[in-house]
């Protein structure tokens, strides 16, 4: 065994032993989930288990030691441990490629693909396709609340169904060209939708927002700060557009404007970069908080384990 591997194996064993010891031999506890039974429905006959906290459990136990409203949840506790181990498996890639990361990566791929398929089936294909073609059948099966105009049969929806079958033809060994028809429909409708949406929502809206008074007058008189801001906004947009405009050579006045446009764009990219980094760091913080708070119970920033 290589020295490097030996060190990491020892670290893992010590870490696992510490976790085991903390979970079993100390009173601090860790990695447990609690749920609260909440009656739902018109008559309150059905019970839904909603997430609760160890602190709420302790408070409820102190009030009534025989209470069962808030209780320990084994399935959710197992889920929490699985989530923590998945998090560690992905983070292990920071050290280097390893089998734990590869397994977690494979699970991401499989679960994501199946998740979006199931979501697409239950949120789009059932209500928007099957319920239009065979509303009676869908009403008696998965959508008993389907009533009114929504429950009317619309056989035009056979067209997207046929296009869908043609799209799936791509998986067949021959006749892949058949999938071009639905693909053409997707491309065409995307182009039509996006063209209008971007013209209306971005192009016109951004131009409209750029046309602002360069001299801002308020009740107190001339507002230098607002005027300066508006001036920067108008001139800045024009300079950036000059940089994007390639029909003229960037020389003379156009060249100077384009250069100023580059400076503004660099500031924009810097801000975008800063925000992206901060967003990712926030995600890291959330994952670490999950490990240290939800799983290990080493920190308790919002007092969830205080009775």
């Amino acid at each position, binding site marked *: 065994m290589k020295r490097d591997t030996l060190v990491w194996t020892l670290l893992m064993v010590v870490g696992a032993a510490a976790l085991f010891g903390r979970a079993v031999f100390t009173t601090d506890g860790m990695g447990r989930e609690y749920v609260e039974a909440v009656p739902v429905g018109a008559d309150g006959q059905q019970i839904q288990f909603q997430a609760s906290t160890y602190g709420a459990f302790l408070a409820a136990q102190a009030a009534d030691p025989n209470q069962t409203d808030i209780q320990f949840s084994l399935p959710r506790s197992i889920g929490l441990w699985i989530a923590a181990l998945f998090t560690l498996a992905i983070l292990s890639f920071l050290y280097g490629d390893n089998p734990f990361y590869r397994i977690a990566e494979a699970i991401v791929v499989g679960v994501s693909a199946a998740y979006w398929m199931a979501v*697409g089936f239950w949120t789009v294909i059932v209500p928007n396709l099957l319920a239009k073609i065979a509303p009676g059948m869908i009403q008696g099966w998965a959508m008993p609340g389907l009533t009114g105009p929504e429950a009317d049969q619309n056989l035009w929806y056979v067209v997207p169904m046929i296009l869908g079958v043609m799209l799936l033809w791509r998986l067949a060994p021959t006749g892949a060209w058949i999938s071009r028809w639905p693909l053409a429909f997707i491309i065409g409708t995307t182009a039509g939708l996006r063209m209008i949406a971007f013209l209306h929502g971005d192009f016109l809206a951004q131009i409209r927002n750029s046309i602002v008074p360069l001299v801002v007058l308020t009740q107190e008189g001339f507002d230098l700060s607002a005027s300066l801001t508006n001036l920067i906004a108008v001139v800045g947009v024009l300079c950036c557009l000059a940089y994007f405009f390639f029909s003229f050579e960037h020389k003379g006045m156009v060249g100077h404007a384009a250069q100023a446009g580059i400076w503004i764009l660099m500031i924009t990219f810097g801000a975008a970069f800063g925000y992206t980094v901060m967003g990712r760091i926030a995600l890291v913080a959330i994952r670490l908080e999950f490990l240290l708070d939800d799983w290990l119970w080493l920190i308790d920033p919002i007092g969830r384990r205080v009775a």
Partner: protein
Amino acid sequence: MKRSVPLLITAVGGFALIVAYFIPYTEALGETVAVWFDILAAIAFILGGGNLLKQHLKKISDRGPGWGYSGVVIGSFLITLFIGLSKVGVPPLAEFPDFAWSGDFIGIGTPFWFIYQYAFVPLTATMFAMLAFYIASAAFRAFRAKNLEAILLLGTAFIILLGRTFAGVALTNWIDPTGPFAGLRIENLTVYIMSVFNTVGNRAIMIGIALGIVAVSLKVLLGVDRSYLGKE
């Protein structure tokens, strides 16, 4: 047949939506086509899942490198799909107790919710979180303040990063927040950069993107750009 019909479908589908926007009588047509688009997008997920299965089964069959991981992909895919599609452990809706399939497939406490909550969310969130390290490392290696443009980019990123941290804000706490130099406090500087310079830059970029999309859309709809049909 193989190329003409798709070109016609593209043009009719696209222009129908454009026309529908301008003629109130055809608004319903536009909405219908948009729903058809959603349906095809959902079916495309099935195509994606089928393709995933096909590729990984082939890898297992060929005993290609890392074929064991392909087994994990297929296993997690099939288990999640079965639980999601067959609504395993999903109780019926409280108002329709006689309809066994009426429940919410991702309702709290259901097995599919468990997969989402304890596998999908932590795995994907940690994947994205790891990008923080790679962005920082790539930036450290690539960014050099050797000209004015690079200095502007680095300086802005530095101010924005500082402005979002407690320590960064504490650096300029000594400047009087009501005085004439209050704008130089890191938190105010960050807000000013974001609301003025960043807005201006993004505005120009969005105008450029919109014009680009219009140009590309017209090329596609008029059949000038046929790259999506492939070579055959």
